[in-house]
């Protein structure tokens, strides 16, 4: 639909070490060069270069930051609200609970849809992970992890496996079997190893790689078969709470949000942090890409959700209301990107009009805070997971 969001990093021989790898275009003493990410890191951590001091570097840092703000301001020729004036107003939505999935004995912390549009996996505080056919309300598979607080779970694109992780600092993959009597724990595969809790995990386009975010401040890409760490992403200065893969045709980037109030966009090939947004006033609990891949939204403890345009490199909308005081813990877009569903700690889900910035609908029904909302792959329903031990399907 739209062209690539940013200039692709070129690939070729590094100007420093000569090896062929993804390159970063950097400036050394105002000259443009192409270094591979390893050489950049070596060069940057070698300390001050000749003629620099800590003070002069700080001064340069401040002036560059100011220049970046100026460049961004030059290109903000219009606001989203102005563009949205030409769009017609949405008719009132009538969204009701269609299913209530009961079966977890404790707070449901996370859920993910299967690509077949009707199955989903959910995980809870007591260590249980359940795979449901939400349409028939059948529980199809169940696993009990030895750890509590399973904070992250994901369904594989093929529908043949699920991944989950949490306080055990690991992310494990379980292949699903049709044999009801088989204990899924026997085939468990430990893939990711972090030094702190795993807050989010997702498969990439295949069953063979998972991307995880952790309380140790890093994100990492892993090869499922060997458990090998393929790439790690450093840059957050506090726990990373959420991540989401870009839906674009190149599929090479992902966004992460954390307790340092920053939302960072990363290139999976080089491990480099491409863009960074620090607009929230408190921890970012959840980030999600817009369906076209050119924008994303974030939900934060400061009770707002924000919308960022990646091509214009700035925040373009804030979704907030005086009557909403409790933090937002989760967001997801509807299929067209017109609606943004956000789950809050005051037990409600609000549906926002992304373009006009107004709240379209409020969904009540949960009896405790909403931990996760996800729209189904074909957009027909919204699933919400909550600390009241249930999941609800809305449509």
């Amino acid at each position, binding site marked *: *639909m739209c062209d690539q969001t940013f200039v*692709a990093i070129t690939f070729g021989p590094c100007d420093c070490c000569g090896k062929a790898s993804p390159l970063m*275009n950097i*400036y050394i003493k105002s000259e443009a060069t192409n270094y591979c990410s390893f050489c*950049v890191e070596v060069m*940057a951590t070698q*300390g001050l270069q000749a003629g620099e001091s*800590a003070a002069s*570097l*700080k001064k*340069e*840092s401040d002036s*560059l930051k100011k220049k*970046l703000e100026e460049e*961004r301001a030059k*290109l903000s020729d*219009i606001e989203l609200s102005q*563009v949205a004036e*030409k*769009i017609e107003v*949405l008719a009132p*939505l009538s*969204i009701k609970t269609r*299913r209530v999935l009961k079966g977890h004995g404790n707070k449901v912390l996370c859920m993910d849809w299967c690509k*077949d*549009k*009707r199955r989903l996996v959910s995980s809870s505080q007591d260590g249980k992970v359940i795979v449901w056919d939400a349409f028939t309300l059948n529980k199809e598979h169940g696993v009990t992890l030895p750890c509590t607080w399973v904070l992250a779970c994901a369904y594989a694109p093929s529908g043949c496996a699920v991944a989950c992780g949490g*306080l055990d600092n690991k992310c494990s993959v379980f292949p699903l079997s049709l044999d009801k009597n088989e204990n899924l724990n026997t085939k468990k595969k430990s893939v990711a190893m972090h*030094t702190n*809790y795993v807050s989010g995990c997702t498969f*990439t*386009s295949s069953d*063979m790689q998972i991307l995880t975010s952790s309380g*140790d*401040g890093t994100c990492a890409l892993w090869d499922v*078969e*060997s458990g*090998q760490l393929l790439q790690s992403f450093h*840059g957050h*200065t*506090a*726990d990373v709470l959420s991540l989401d893969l870009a839906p674009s*045709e190149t599929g090479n980037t992902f966004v992460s949000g954390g307790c340092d109030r920053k939302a960072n966009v990363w290139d999976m*090939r080089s491990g480099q942090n491409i863009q960074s947004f620090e607009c929230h006033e408190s921890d970012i609990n959840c980030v999600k890409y817009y369906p076209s891949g*050119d*924008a994303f939204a974030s939900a934060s403890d400061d009770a707002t959700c924000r919308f960022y*345009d990646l*091509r*214009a*490199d700035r925040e373009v909308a804030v979704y907030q209301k005086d009557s909403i005081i409790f933090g937002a813990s989760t967001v997801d877009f*509807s299929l*067209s*990107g*017109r609606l943004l569903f956000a789950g809050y700690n005051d037990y409600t889900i609000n549906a926002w009009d992304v373009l006009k910035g107004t709240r379209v609908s409020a969904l009540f029904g949960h009896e405790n805070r909403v931990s996760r909302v996800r729209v189904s792959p*074909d*957009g*027909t329903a*919204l699933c919400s997971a909550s600390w009241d031990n249930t999941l609800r*399907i809305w*449509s």
Partner: protein
Amino acid sequence: MRICLRKVDLPLSPAPISICRMTIRTARPNRGQHFRPRTHCLNKLESIVVEMQDPKSGVKGSEQKLNVSTIPHVITGKDVIAWITNKMKTTPEEVQAFGTMLVAYGYIYPLQNHKKLVLCNDSSLYRFQTPYFWPTQKWVAEDSDYAIYLAKRNIRKKGMLEAYEQAHYSHLHDWLNHKWDFIVMQATEQYKAGKERNKPDRVVFDCQERAYWIVSRPPFGLPLSFQNIFYQQAIMRSKVKSSVSLGALTKYVTTYKNHDPFLAPCLPSNPWQTDHDAYWTCNTRRIDVPTKMRVERWSFSLFELLSDLRGRDDFKVFLKKEFSGMPPHLMRHLSNLAFWEAAEELKWGTASSMTSKAETIFKTFLAPGAPRWINIDGRTMGLTVKGLDHPHRYVLEAAQTHVFLLMKKVHVLVSNKLEQNAQNRSLGVHPVIVWQQEEEEKAKAAAASAPVDVKAMMSKIDRKK
């Protein structure tokens, strides 16, 4: 109050466990890595460190003149490595790793380059850390201790704190404001007590304390020079005017409006609302006739067409048989599509399959005279082939993008044709209608074969008159 100084020569028996802290969400947002000592292995480390300090069989120490003072009991990196090799009799890599762990956990600290916690196998200088500062001691590195330490350094020389230390300091000032007077008083006391010591002892203690805090509060955040590179790149990155990008976002919404089940009804019905899953069964991959909405979606972008496996199938069928007299420049998209699929498999495949997949792809698509040779520009071809010497999952990135752009050019043509085809074929009838039609046929047949009711017929004719 913990102001005492211990000399390094007295080996101490290791103290039992320290507290293991774990929080779901840290209440102090600017903390980097959590440091959680692992007592069992640390006890083992300590016994080795004690051995290393044995005056007869341990690592040989000497005096070093550093700046203006003389520092006793200094050891070199290579001596430590030699001692460990002799003791453990293992490979150089393991010895290096073990040595680095001794430094990382704070049992040995570097005198030069004090922020880099690695053991260098050369004449770099190190010292053994006093047991008082070992990780397993009874006291945990508390924030108030750190605050006192930073305040003391500030008293000694203003502006001496590094950027990350400044960040810690201002944060602690907010966090521990209620006992700030106490902290400043302690820092002043420690500073005065320190001044009363002789110079060499003072230098030693300062080094020990500094090393301890580097281990317990590691420097975080990117070094300034790295940050500047990030800003420079951000400035140089191509950005788009808001009117353009916001316009594109709005266009996306408008295009997909009718396909969003929350905004427009989905046909025949939303399964969650009616409990009938016809919507899913008529949108499977192998269904005879894809729905009109589905085909319309393929026309939105090549990405949509390729993401829907049925769209990809129909694209292939179109290329293979729709036009026997198809111009060659369209025929080659068959290999383009095959190459694109193979590149996707490489990118998302297992790490162990990289080399074999790359080889197959080279033989099939890229080698001169290959059976499905793809026609991409010389520069991309050259770079790709060269990259295949050391294959990794992104080696085909440039070639794949190029092929994708080539296919994009025919996307409009293809989707128009696919839409036409969909319209030419019968739309397929809803099962309910089919059932109704069948019932009507049955009724008509029943009526036709039933015996004629003469009276009714006659009265009908009479009524017509």
